[in-house]
Structures are given as structure tokens and as C-alpha cells.
């Protein structure tokens, strides 16, 4: 697709004077048609299963609730409710804060991890890359219950500490805490951070690092001044992945967090699943989506400016 677009320029120019110009235009047209055909399955999937439901959600956010039944209408009261309810603002700010902290932690772990994978274990990197992917195979709920069994009262950590005689009573705040939510999410998000950064590092020659070392840079300095800017595209993608995934999170806080550790996603789930105020939930979801877009844009353009 991109190739056909970039090649079109010079082809056209040549076609104007060459005798085979018409043939080239025909080839050009066929290539464009082929590009659209190649896009079709993906775009059809995206339209039917994402854009159409999203449009439904958008419509729903303007509906009126009559006896727990959303009735088609065009009212702005749902949005007014979103912005004036203090719990939304508080949950929203906390969610952004948590997402920000988790993003920083995940990037700090993912970048060295991708670096080591790509430059240190170069010969075995495919295998190690696969092992990182495997951690994604485990599944969402399995991961959460795994963390429950690690952090719970009868969990691995408490049992070990008691067995060693360091504590007498199990530590309660391991589970049902922000710590549990964060630990589990970091575990889940690291592959999402490593993948794009690792992919971007494929384009960085190991000899460029050697060139920096040769000119007097320590390993860490070379990683920071040479590898980081050259793989910034991947770091930006990782940031967006991790930040957005955390903003939409609600299952992990529900199962691992305490009553005070809920995120904005839990509130949306509350409207849809418990109070059955669907239009209200739709308005909150739409607001969150717009906010996510704005945040992603701000962060990515900030990072762009920082690396220039």
C-alpha cells in the first residue's frame, strides 16, 4: 500500500513522455485496486466489529433512561452528569495517575529488556522473544488468580515469610491493594512494552553502538544517546499501548484491588452491569475515549519534542 503510493510520483512523470506511458498508468491503476482489495478484510472487520458498535454507543450516550430502559432521544444530561459528578473526576484523575506511574515503570523495565534481547543475547533472541510472548498466552483471568495465590493470606509470599519466622501473622495489605493491582498490571503490560521497542531496535545496527563505545561512550551512555533515540518510534508505541490499556482497565482492580482502589473503568462497568444506567455509562465511556485520545496525543508529541 505505502509502496504503491510512494512509487506513483516518479512513475507518473515518466509516463507523460514515454511511449509506454499508458501501459504504466494501467499498471498503476491495477496496483491501486490491488491495494484496496488487500485492505478489505481488515477494514471490514474493523468497521463491523468496532466502528458500528462504537456508533451505537455514541447514540446511546444521548438516550434517555425510562424505567431502566434506554429510549432513543437527544439529551445532553448524561454528559452533564459525567462532568459534574465528583466521583467521576476523582476516579478519572486517579486512573490517569495510575496509568502514568505504570507506564513509567513498564518503560523502565521494557527498554533494558528489549535491549538485552536484541543486542546481548543476539544469537538466542528469537527463543527469548518467544518466551516473552508466551507470558501473553496465559490469559487474563488466569494471570489475576495467579497473583491472588501469590499475594493472598495463604499465598506464596506470606507462607514463605511465616515459614522463615520473619512475620507471625500474614500481611493483609498485599492483596486487595493498589500494590496488587499494579504488580499484576505491570506483569501483563511488560510484553506490550517490550514488543514494539524490540521491533524498533531491529533497525539499529550493533555496530552503531560500537562506534559510540569507540568514541568514549560507556555502555549506558551509548544506550541512552544512540539506541534510545533510534528506537524512539517503538518507545512511543509502547507508551501509547500501556497508557491506553491501563486507562481502560477494570477487571484487575475489581479482583485484586480493595474498595478504595477502583479505576474509572469500574465506574463504567457499574453503569452497564449493576445500576443498568446504560446511557450514563455510554456517555462516560465516550468521554473517557476522547480523553484517552487527547492524552495519547499530548504524551506522544511531548516525547517527539524531547528527542529532537
Amino acid at each position, binding site marked *: 500500500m505505502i509502496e504503491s503510493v510512494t512509487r506513483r510520483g516518479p512513475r507518473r512523470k515518466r509516463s507523460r513522455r514515454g511511449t509506454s506511458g499508458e501501459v504504466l498508468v494501467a499498471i498503476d491503476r491495477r496496483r491501486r485496486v490491488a491495494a484496496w482489495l488487500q485492505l478489505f478484510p481488515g477494514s471490514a472487520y474493523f468497521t463491523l466489529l468496532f466502528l458500528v458498535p462504537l456508533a451505537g454507543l455514541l447514540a446511546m450516550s444521548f438516550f434517555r433512561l425510562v424505567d431502566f430502559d434506554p429510549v432513543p432521544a437527544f439529551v445532553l444530561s448524561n454528559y452533564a452528569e459525567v462532568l459534574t459528578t465528583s466521583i467521576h473526576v476523582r476516579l478519572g484523575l486517579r486512573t490517569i495517575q495510575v496509568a502514568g506511574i505504570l507506564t513509567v515503570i513498564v518503560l523502565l523495565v521494557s527498554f533494558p529488556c528489549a535491549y538485552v534481547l536484541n543486542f546481548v543475547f543476539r544469537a538466542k533472541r528469537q527463543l527469548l522473544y518467544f518466551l516473552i510472548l508466551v507470558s501473553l498466552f496465559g490469559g487474563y483471568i488466569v494471570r489475576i488468580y495467579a497473583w491472588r495465590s501469590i499475594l493472598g493470606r495463604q499465598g506464596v509470599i506470606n507462607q514463605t515469610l511465616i515459614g522463615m519466622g520473619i512475620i507471625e501473622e500474614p500481611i493483609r495489605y498485599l492483596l486487595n491493594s493498589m500494590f496488587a493491582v499494579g504488580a499484576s498490571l505491570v506483569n501483563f503490560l511488560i510484553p506490550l512494552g517490550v514488543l514494539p521497542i524490540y521491533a524498533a531496535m531491529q533497525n539499529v545496527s550493533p555496530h552503531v553502538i560500537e562506534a559510540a563505545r*569507540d*568514541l568514549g*561512550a*560507556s555502555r549506558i551512555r551509548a544506550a541512552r544517546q544512540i539506541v534510545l533515540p*533510534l528506537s524512539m518510534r517503538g518507545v512511543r508505541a509502547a507508551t501509547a499501548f500501556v497508557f491506553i490499556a491501563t486507562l481502560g482497565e477494570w477487571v484487575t482492580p475489581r479482583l485484586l484491588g480493595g474498595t478504595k482502589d477502583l479505576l474509572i473503568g469500574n465506574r463504567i462497568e457499574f453503569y452497564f452491569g449493576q445500576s443498568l444506567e446504560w446511557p450514563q455509562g455510554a456517555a462516560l465511556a465516550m468521554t473517557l475515549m476522547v480523553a484517552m485520545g487527547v492524552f495519547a496525543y499530548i504524551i506522544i508529541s511531548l516525547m517527539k519534542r524531547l528527542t529532537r
Partner: protein
Amino acid sequence: MTDGSRRPFQPAILLEGVTKRFGSVVAVDNVTLAVEEGEFFSLLGPSGCGKTTLLRMLAGFETPDDGSVYLRGEDVTLVQPNKRATNMVFQNYELFPHMTVFNNVAYGLKLKKVPRNEIGQRVNEMLEVVGVGGLGTRAADQLSGGQQQRVALARALINRPAVLLLDEPLSALDVKLRKRMQLELKSIQHSLGTTFVYVTHDQEEALLMSDRVGIMDHGRLLQIGAPRSIYEQPRNEFVADFVGTLNDFAITVTRTDGDLAVAENGDGDRIVVMAGHSCRAGDTLRIAVRPERILLTPRAEEADSGQPGNRLSGRVQDVIYMGPFTQYLVDTGMLGRVVSQRVSNEEATLITPGLEVAVTWAVDAAFPLSDRDPVEAPTT
């Protein structure tokens, strides 16, 4: 970097019994070598001979399994590359693509915390020296191959290294540009007086640029010497064959005459070799003669066949025109195919395929060949 105990007349580089293995492969095998200050030293050999590994051990990217590396008398065998007074020009330049030309060249100086105004001055000077003055603000990934090469050279040289290491720096350039850069590199080296260690597989390049050349094969340093001695007195068959083309003959001695061994076949063909007193009739000798030392005379014009020198009769099989030179493949009865190379002048056009010729060469043009065994490597 250099300690107070540095003695005068230390070689810039001293390698002592350096060996490097990768798994079961011995990449560099017990190499001992000294390179003098200000010298242009080339490591020449086929790909996979260990020359690049040797260079990387000088830079600090590889650590020898055995032996020691000294830089100006200081043992740097285990010193990290960023702590060594060497700088390297890489085969594919490896400029920092996200930086301007100026920042690429300034990188080493910034790390050394050189004052800003001094950096500006030195970078611009160095860009002039290598012939890319005025390109400082250009992005490094917007340069031609030749320009990248020059910037890579400037980026290394600006740190005033004790030794500049160059890993086939010209191999990615086209022939014309390569020839020009060879001369420019040589003149830059001469004017700065920096010690250069230059890795190449191009024998012509090594001969024309270097003060001394070291020939490597299978990790071993086979011979070290000035270009002329490498070319004219190769110590063994590999060196002789790798540096230039070669006529390689085995002859059976029929009689001796003092130091001279003579082989005759009774048809008027005669080969005379300086062989020394130990040679006896019946011995087999292996000798080699460079193609450009072999003369061809049309048989019809042959003046006097009664001379005591080398003389073979043969018939021209093929004439290969190579521009400045022309090569003749001559089939001789006594030695099989002999290659002769002459300047492409008027006379050269007279020799055509099928012509009966007399093949001659001066007695001292031939040198004896030993087997591929490496010789002990002396330092001069």
C-alpha cells in the same frame, strides 16, 4: 591514559602471542606484531583470515584468549573500548543517523567535556581536512557513500587517537572514488602523522598505501614487510599467490653450474635458477615468476638462441586486453601454460593468438617457493 613510565621508542602497538577463538574456530592464531608510531600498516588477507578480528582486539571489541595487547607500551588487553586511545573507521561507516554531520564528529569531544567553542573550531577544521567542509548541518543519513566515509574518518580522527583503526573503509565505494580516497587517505595520514592500521583484502590497495604490509591467512600472520619486499620476495606460496598473479613452476634439475641450477629438455628449452650450492642434478625445484617479468619475442625475430639464460618456445593461446595492460596466455612444451603481462603499446598488438614465440625472463626474476607454512614473523 599513558602512565609516567612510558619509555621513548615504544611501538604504537605491540601484540604478543595474541590468539582468539570462536568456538572451535581459531580466528587469530598466535600473532606477534609491532607497529611503529606514524606508520601506515596494512593487514592484508582473504575474507575470514582473521584480520578484522585482530583489528577488533586492538579496538577493544574482542578480548584475546591468549596473549597481550600493548598500546604505546601500556597493557590494554582488558581495557574497554571507551577507555582506549584508539579510534575506528567502520566498514559501513556507522554514522549516527539521528544526528547532524557536526554532531557526529563532535560526539567524541563532547564525551571528553571539551569546551564548546573549542569543539566548534576543531570540528570545522577536521571537516575541512577530510574534504566535507560546509556539510556540518546536513543530517548524517543524507550523505553519499563517499561523504559518509569522510565524515566517519573525521569523527575518528578528531579525537587524536594514538592509533587509527580502519576496517576496509573503502570497500563500499565505486572504483573511481576508491582510487581517489586511497591517495587522499594516504596524504591525510602523512600530514597528521597518525599511526594507521588498515585492514583490506585488496592487495593493490595495501601495496600502494602502506609503509608495511602484514599478510594473514587462517588466523596466522605469514609475512610482514614493505610492499616491495612482500611483492618481490614472498616467503611462501600463499603470500606470492595472494599478492599479485603468479606463474608457478616445478622443474627437475638436469645439471648445476656453481650457484645456478639448470633444467633442459633437449629441444633447446632451458631454465636457469639461482638455487644455491646444495642443489643436485635430479632435484625438483618450485619456482615462481611474476607475469610482468616474462618477455615474449616472436620466434621469427629471435636474434640469438645461444644465450645462457632462460628460454622456452611456445605458442600464444589467448590475448586478454585489460586496458593499460595486456595478458598473454602462452602454451609452452616444457612448463605448460605461462602468463605474460605487458604494457598495452604498439608492440603488444603484434603478438596475436597462434603466434610462435620465445618466452624469456631474467634469472633474478624467478624466486623459489616454499610450502604454505608460515614463517617466523620478524618485526621489520
